[in-house]
């Protein structure tokens, strides 16, 4: 099942919550939608599901204009961000609902319910009241409910948001496998890059109602169109630089061309995006092209330590996120030297904000 | 009656200032009775007393309430007993005697209690009314008397009230007993039943939703109503028509008298007596026809023109002794119900 949004705009509460979004999702593609809170992700899903009529624009499924088709006739499955479980039905009744609507047989329903509950780690929960479920359990029931009728277009709104990492990883794996094997087209809204990276063949970044960039994960990571997109995709430091005659001049000096992921397009002021994987901590403070800075913050992340290194610039210090793998135990306040890796930093137009 | 007298005598002695100019008389009445502002003002001017009217449902309910609260009544005067409830009220010793000032001006035929525990205030006649226009257009004569109502010529035309719940209904039942006697009345009703008589719950139901004449929305041209109904049908028309749209079958009429009495145990028996006198005053009596659509009891009271012209005041209506009605009423109603409704 393929999906197309054509210049969809949604006006709500006095403003355009979704603005002129056009989007193609191919048959059996899994598209991840990533965007900050309030950017319009849920609204886009609601438009696709037919729960929200677009103010303008069209929705097509398999090439057919469905803008005026009511939700239940669109054949989409949706998992709601706030779950929206039926309080008057037990877990089994919630999960079976879609099957019943599709007039599946009793025994087929029962076995499918058991199957999806098992998938989400809630085997045997059939007769539990939804009232007594924990937050994560509710989320899983909501997911199971959306999966049970095997919709061919699946809309997932933060399906794993309140699950622990281990469960989330397992479900992500299973979900990815499931989607692929069942040949489902899916739109997966998430605020978590790792999740988007894991399921999305392509990721659509939504910013303030607009579709800012769509592409496969590495492209978004390495070639974000602007600072805002870069930020949504992962930690990034932003350094004001000047491009002169195609050469990038940073506050600490000109950059060697080989460190750039791609050559700058135009002269003038620009912003240099520095991902944590673009810099290395030098073991001793005296490298030729080293960037001097001070550890501003440091946080233990288990398998690594995340440092924020303040690098002075004429307009004040900028924070560069740095991953410290090697247990160097740099402490806050310590001076460090950073080195840019080859083909790692990105030059974009100056941040407007 | 001695007890009644005692309390009537003691009342004023104990009371704070019962005959002071600012006392209050409470009239317990059915919900059709009221005194308009002019009437109240007149009474207050005459006596210095104010009136409160406590309504208690239909006439029978009011009497029954009075019986329930005998000795500790809801007010001072009871207005609205009719012949059918009279003996029950008298048996319950509800009243103390009061001989009204103008009683001598009342037609003696209307004064049913010689102890004057109750005083007649108005009277009317329950009679079969007919839709004159309907009969004219059908080219049919209205029925001549009670017996004619069972004639197939008048099949499916009559609507009566259920005597169990309606006072004209009960009055009409007594008319049939008076006419056909204890032995014949049930057969008569059987005949009416065979002739398609319709039974309404009460007067309004019969007159406005089943009767075709006048303002009625129904489809039956004959209804049990009052001898004074026709004037109401022309009231306000200018000029008055020659004929009222409804007519009265005079030979079917049965008399109904409405009484008032001073309640035993009243807080203000003097005031009560004054009020009863007031009800016989010209002022009130003259207002009776167009307010209640019945006749005043004071002989020679001036009647409005419509009333004079269109109301029927039968010379010789059916009339049963109140005691007879009281003794047999429940049995009649039961037998009637069995014959007509089942």
């Amino acid at each position, binding site marked *: 099942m393929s999906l197309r949004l054509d210049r969809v705009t949604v006006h709500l509460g006095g403003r355009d919550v979704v603005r002129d979004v056009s989007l193609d999702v191919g048959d059996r593609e899994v598209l991840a939608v990533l965007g900050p809170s309030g950017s319009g992700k849920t609204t886009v899903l609601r438009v696709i599901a037919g729960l929200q009529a677009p103010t303008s624009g069209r929705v097509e499924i398999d090439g057919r204009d469905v803008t005026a088709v009511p939700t239940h006739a669109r054949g989409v499955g949706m998992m709601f961000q706030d779950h*929206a479980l039926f309080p*008057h*039905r037990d877990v089994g009744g919630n999960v079976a609902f*879609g099957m019943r609507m599709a007039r599946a047989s009793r025994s087929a329903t029962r076995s499918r319910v058991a199957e999806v509950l098992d998938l989400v780690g809630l085997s045997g929960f059939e007769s539990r009241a939804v009232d007594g479920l924990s937050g994560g359990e509710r989320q899983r029931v909501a997911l199971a409910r959306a999966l049970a009728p095997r919709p061919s277009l699946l809309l997932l709104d933060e399906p794993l948001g309140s699950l622990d990492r281990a469960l989330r990883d397992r479900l992500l794996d299973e979900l990815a496998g499931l989607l692929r094997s069942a040949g489902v087209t899916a739109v997966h809204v998430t605020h978590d890059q790792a999740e988007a990276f894991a399921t999305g063949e392509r990721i659509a970044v939504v910013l303030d109602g607009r579709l800012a960039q769509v592409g496969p994960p590495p492209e978004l990571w390495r070639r974000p169109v602007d600072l805002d997109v870069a930020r949504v995709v992962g930690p990034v430091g932003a350094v004001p630089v000047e491009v002169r005659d195609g050469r990038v001049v940073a506050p600490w000096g000109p950059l060697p061309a080989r460190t750039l992921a791609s050559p700058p397009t135009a002269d003038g002021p620009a912003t240099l995006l520095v991902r944590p994987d673009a810099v290395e901590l030098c073991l001793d403070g005296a490298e030729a092209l080293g960037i001097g800075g001070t550890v501003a913050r440091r946080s233990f992340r288990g398998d690594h330590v995340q440092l924020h290194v303040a690098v002075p610039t004429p307009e004040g210090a900028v924070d560069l996120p740095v991953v410290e793998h090697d247990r160097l135990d740099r402490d806050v306040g310590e001076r460090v030297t950073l080195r840019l890796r080859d083909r790692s930093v990105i030059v974009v137009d100056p941040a407007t904000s | 009656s001695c007890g009644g007298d005692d309390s009537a005598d003691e009342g004023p002695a104990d009371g704070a200032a019962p005959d002071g100019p600012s006392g209050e008389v409470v009239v317990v009445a059915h919900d059709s009775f009221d005194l308009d502002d002019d009437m109240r003002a007149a009474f207050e001017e005459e006596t210095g007393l104010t009136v409160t009217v*406590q309504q208690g449902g239909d006439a029978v309910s009011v009497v029954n309430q009075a019986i*329930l609260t005998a000795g500790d009544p809801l007010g001072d005067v009871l207005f609205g007993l009719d012949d059918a409830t009279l003996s029950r009220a008298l048996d319950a010793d509800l009243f103390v005697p009061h001989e009204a000032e103008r009683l001598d001006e009342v037609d003696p035929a209307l004064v049913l209690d010689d102890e004057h525990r109750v005083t007649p205030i108005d009277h009317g006649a329950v009679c079969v009314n007919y839709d004159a226009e309907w009969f004219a257009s059908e080219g049919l004569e209205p029925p001549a008397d009670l017996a004619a109502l069972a004639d197939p010529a008048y099949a499916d035309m009559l609507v009566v009230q259920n005597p169990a719940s309606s006072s004209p209904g009960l009055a009409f039942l007594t008319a049939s007993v008076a006419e056909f006697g204890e032995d014949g009345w049930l057969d008569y009703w059987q005949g009416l039943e065979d002739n398609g008589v319709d039974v309404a719950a009460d*007067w*309004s*139901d019969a007159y406005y939703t089943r009767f075709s004449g006048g303002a009625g929305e129904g489809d039956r041209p004959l209804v049990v109503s009052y001898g004074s109904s026709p004037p109401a049908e022309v*009231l306000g028309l200018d000029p008055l028509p020659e004929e009222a749209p409804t007519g009265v079958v005079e030979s079917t009429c049965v008399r109904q008298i409405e009484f008032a009495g001073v309640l035993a145990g009243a807080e203000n028996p003097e005031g009560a007596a004054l009020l009863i006198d007031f009800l016989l005053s010209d002022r009130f009596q003259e207002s009776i026809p167009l307010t209640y659509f019945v006749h005043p009891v004071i002989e020679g009271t001036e009647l409005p023109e419509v009333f004079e012209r269109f109301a029927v005041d039968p010379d010789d209506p059916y009339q049963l002794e109140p005691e007879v009605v009281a003794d047999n009423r429940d049995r009649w109603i039961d037998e009637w119900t069995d014959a007509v409704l089942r």
Partner: protein
Amino acid sequence: MLSLPPLVFLAVFFAVPVGAILLTGLRPDGSWALGALVEVLGDGALRGVVWFTLWQAVLSTVLTLAVGVPVAYALTRFDFPGRRVVHAALLVPFVLPTVVVAVAFIVTLGSGLRGTLVAILVAHVFFNVAVVVRVVGGLLEKLDPRMEDAAATLGAGRWRTALHVVLPLARPAIVSAAGVVFLFTFTSFGVVLLLGGPEHATLEVEIHRQTTQLLDLPVAAALSLLQLAIVAGLLAVGTGRQQALAVAQPIAGDAASVRRPRGVGERSFLAAALALAGALVGVPLALLVLRSFRAPDGGLGLQWYRALVDPEASVLGRPALDAVRHSLEFAVAATVVAVVVGLAAAVVVTRGPRRWARALDVVLLLPLGVSAVTVGFGFLISLDDPPLDLRGSWWLIPMAQALVAVPFVVRVLVPVLSSIDDRVREAAAVLGASPARVWREVDLPLVGRAVGVAAGFAFAVSLGEFGATVFIARAETVTVPVAILRLLGRPGPSNFGQAMALSTILMVMTTVSLLVISRLRPGGTR
């Protein structure tokens, strides 16, 4: 603590008067005379009456739900011009004297149906759709629209969403409404008397006759006890079910989920629901209104309205506007009492100890299960000693009206209250709100709209009550329905026309009052 006001109220204005009148019947001279009871229960004809009373009530209730639930759904889901007016106008039948309703029906349907069971059923539905629309609508308005969204994404169309999600969630309210409708129709009096014809008798008709006409208190008491026992028994069963059905659910705020209908399906559903309501309630009422403008010459005119205010032309004896004022005063007082008592009761029913709650829930409905005349007569013989010497007091009437209105308030509020998600209350508690404060800050505003609905209901019930009012009214403070009755107690086109005019005034006054009340919302500050 909170159960005190409802209990005291019920004790003084219900238990004591009714107990007194029953005792008068059963112990006429200080010793038990249970002969009547035995006799009544052994009467074969009575069994027929009980049976008819029961099954026509069940049938009426089912029919009323069948009409009322879709109308409630349409009115709470779809917006259209005049939605609020329709909602308010549906309650008009409640305030009209039955004989006026009978006129309306004859005018609409002709006399053909008169005396048939169909007439009774149609009239019962006519009267009581508003009960269903109000009680069920009160909850539907609060349903979280996301439940319906979720069902739609699972393949349920509107119908099946309604059937599988909305109805089950509204079930406590449906059961609640059914209870009231059942009571009304079980104790139906005027309709059965006027439209059903004399061969259709309910227990209530018999009680009424025995009490007011025959003053056979022993038989009346026996019948009343029988009626009470049946009613209480059935209610106890029904209430248990209702509580078992209540589920806490996310409740929407006041940004109600009404919207314009979309698509042919929705539009035709709305049209059908409105047509049904219109045919059933609108047409008869409209024809009455038309009657009020009909001049004797067949044209249209205002003369009956003029006659109403002309002391020469009217038999009312005082300006008709006085009756309007008295009606409003009584109704306002009764509404305030009913809402206060009903709110307290609803809280106890939903939050109090379970057993208590159930018992109170049943007891609160009983006033509807007792004949108004029983209550009226009871007032007369019991409220005559200080400190409760209320006979003749102005307050007696609003109290009697409130007695009938309280059950509605409770019925509207309980389903909504019991569906409020506890977590919202907990959030308030964590932020430092004591239980009383939680009630004021969370429950009250969340049921705010429902309180408005309940108040409107109470208001209409009070305006229309005359079973008891007629017993204790005073001519000086006559209410509009009683005035209409008085006009219809006299012959002639003038009286009839004035009655229709006054009925029309009552309709307008009811609708306008309800529209105003629906805008009042206790604790409704955002």
